[in-house]
């Protein structure tokens, strides 16, 4: 926590320096846009370096968590520098508006990503289960196989297909793939309620032995629900970048074009 305040302090100091500099330039009738624009370009460059750093994990280029802090603080700094550079919240002109839309989109998606990165890991640690995102399909398949094995065993041993029929009609849908994704993203309890409901509704129609199997299937469903929760949240932690990174790439493309135009027409 202390570390981030250090970054924030440096960012504020940097912004104030640039701001004062631009004010002085304005006072002396010079172009302050070149200073604010140059500072903004530098910060955008630093932001891009985070992605480069992630692609070069073998190089001793500072720990990733420091890069993340730097990226976060620099992102907010870029927003304030953008306002300083543009002079307005919403610029006029189609070309600059496209640039502004992309920049605001990148910033907003970054802020959402930051919120998720701060909130979701805490929620995931509360689940007494750990799983690797890439192995979730294998885990789900394993649970599904176990559940189907139990159903077969139950039918064979008890001679009753009540549980099997119920499984085919209801629980099979649940075990097929991750469910209640959106509800999990927002921290809902629909999955748990649904599993409990589906198990309890059948309980009175089962004998003692079948209930034993139902309990085991219930336990598997609970495990699967936890994996689903992991899947939902970890998916969000990965998929927000599908918005953030392309927008950032578009911003950089526009910034380069902007620089070319400035250099050509306002040199």
């Amino acid at each position, binding site marked *: 926590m202390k570390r981030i305040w250090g970054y924030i302090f440096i960012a504020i100091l940097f912004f104030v320096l640039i701001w004062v500099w631009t004010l002085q330039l*304005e*006072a*002396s*009738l*010079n*172009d302050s846009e070149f200073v604010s624009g140059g500072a903004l370009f530098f910060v955008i460059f630093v932001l891009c370096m985070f992605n480069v750093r992630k692609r070069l994990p073998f190089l001793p280029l500072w720990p990733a968590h420091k890069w993340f802090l730097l990226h976060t603080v620099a992102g907010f700094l870029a927003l304030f520098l953008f306002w300083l550079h543009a002079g307005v919240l919403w*610029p*006029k*002109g*189609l*070309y*600059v508006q*496209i640039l502004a839309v992309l920049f605001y989109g990148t910033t907003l998606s970054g802020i959402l990503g930051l919120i998720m990165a701060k909130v979701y890991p805490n929620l995931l640690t509360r689940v007494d*289960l750990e*799983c*690797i*995102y*890439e*192995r979730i*399909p*294998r*885990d*789900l*398949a*394993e649970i599904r*196989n176990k559940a189907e094995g139990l159903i077969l065993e139950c039918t064979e041993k008890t001679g009753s297909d009540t549980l099997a029929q119920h499984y085919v009609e209801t629980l099979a849908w649940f075990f*097929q*793939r*991750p469910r209640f994704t959106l509800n999990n993203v927002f921290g809902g309890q629909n999955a748990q309620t649904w599993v409990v409901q589906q198990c309890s509704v059948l309980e009175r129609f089962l004998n003692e032995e079948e209930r034993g199997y139902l309990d085991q299937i219930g336990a598997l469903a609970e*495990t699967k629900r936890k994996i689903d929760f992991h899947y939902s949240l970890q998916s969000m932690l*990965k*998929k927000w*970048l*599908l918005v953030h*990174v*392309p*927008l*950032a*790439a*578009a911003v*950089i*493309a*526009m910034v380069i*074009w902007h620089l*070319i*135009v400035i*250099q*050509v*027409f*306002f*040199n």
Partner: protein
Amino acid sequence: MDENKFDHDQSPYERPNFPYLCGRGALWRTPCNNGPKIDGSCGGTRDCEPFSKEGRWLCRREKQFGGSCAEGPGPRGECSWQRPPCAPRKTLRVIRGRIAFLAVAAIVVLVAFSQAFNPDGGGGFISISDAVPLSKAHKKFTEGCASCHAVYGQGPAGWAKAVFTQLDISERCVTCHSFDGPDSMAHNEDLAKGREVRKTQCIMCHREHSGERMSTRQSTSEQCNTCHKNKFESFSQGHPEFPERYPYFERNAIKFDHGSHLKKHFENPKFTEKAPTSCIDCHQVALSDREVRPQGYEAICIDCHGSQIKKKDLVLIRLPELMHDLIDRDALVQACNSPAEEKTDEEFLSVSTEMAALVSAFLLNVPEDDPEAYEQPLQELILAMAEESILPLEDLINSKTDNKSMADKLLIGLNPEVLKRAACSWGLNLEYAPPVEAKFGGWYADMLEVRYKPMGHRDPVAKNWVEFALAVSTIQDDESPTTLAMRDQLISAKEGVGGCVKCHAISETITADGKKKLAVEWHYKDVNDRPHSNYAHSSHIEIMGNKSSCSNCHILDAKAEYMASFKDFNASKWSSNFVSIERKTCVQCHTESQINQDCQSCHVYHLNPGFKRKMISAKRQMPEVKKIKNDM
């Protein structure tokens, strides 16, 4: 969950950096045992592989996928446990990269499209000029981007060159805009007096591409302080005091003594009814801006001063006292067609005992009070007038000036017959008896004089005579007493023709060739000697009201010797009717947290900004302007 499930022999090693993931896993089935490789290929469709153990063929698989297979191999050596073919899917990482690439490609296409679809090499639907739209004025007047941007439309080579070339866009601005001074110097004037000051550029203050309204940088005191020697915080704090006599630097064109009128004449019961009740009765508040001009003579002066002009005649010629009769009587009789009359031997006794008129004395270049000096030329003139009426007078007048049409201006309306008859009478040493009294103004002869009676305000003959008197008095290098006497009489407030100079000031000016010249200030004079200052009376009157707003700033100076200032021809030396306005008067309102104190509220940066001829002709070619002209 099994804690050991991620051991090396329990599960395959995950490679999230690979660009593919198992297609079967993506469909939430059990992923393939031999997942996709880096090139996207899968490990095969069989779970089990045949192997030979102690001379016997068996089927097996890795322990993590179940170990030995229960069945197989078959007669042809193949193992069972086959799986349908798997189609690997792209990982999120790859999808993200592709979307990012598409986003960049979209921007590149957009820019290329905008460049390609403009005939000038730029523009399109996200044109460069659309960085932010141009102001309304420049959108209409300029001929596209190239009007300001030299590099526009010159292609990639031109662009590359422009990056390494210093551009001064101000050079383009002044192809249309003009100033009364160097355009790249502060305030369009060399105010630095030898000091090193930086060159100014239009874009230092004026910003284009700021939307429809032209954006001008607000001039703050700090910005002015960067160049100005007198540095100050704001108008209320530190602004230099106004100079002495501010803002009454130049003498008025019209001699209107506010002091005597307000304190003396308007309070006189004789004039109370005609007197104005406030400043706005005389000054045109409705049209005020920098000046609050008074209304014309006919609106505000004529009630009291209307009759005075007609009372002040010009005496062109007067038959003065003569000592001898030197006129050729035969010639006179012939010229006047009068009965022959022989000269008698009686002593000549002049019919007049007056002095010669100053105007005729000047024209003949003789002293007006020396009969011996003037009688010969004057009697020659009388005879000449009797013979040729107006012509000898014209010749005399034109001989005094370089302007050969001066006589035409001065003698407008002079009836030759009247002049001839008066000359004939005077030649015979008789008074001229007019048929009736002259009442309506103009030229007339009466007894011993030829006079001009002004017909009213703006009388052209009276104006011309005053201007003639001033012109000849400055043309002549050796100012003779007769010239000065004639001039002083004509510009006398009491005796001068029409009494023009009672109200109109005469000021000395310097002509283009450096000569001094006296000129009558016939018209109200706007104060235009401070081109960098700006003051709007209208907005101040609007705030403070019509009645009392004038006296808040313009305080009458009872001690000022206003009229005495006009005795001299030097317009810069004078005493105003009003006390100088001081900064503290303005600071009453223009102060912190009250009314705006920006420099631009009172100061104009440029020196008489305007447009060049090219700009005006370009405007005439605009379709909307053409249409208006055609409609007219």
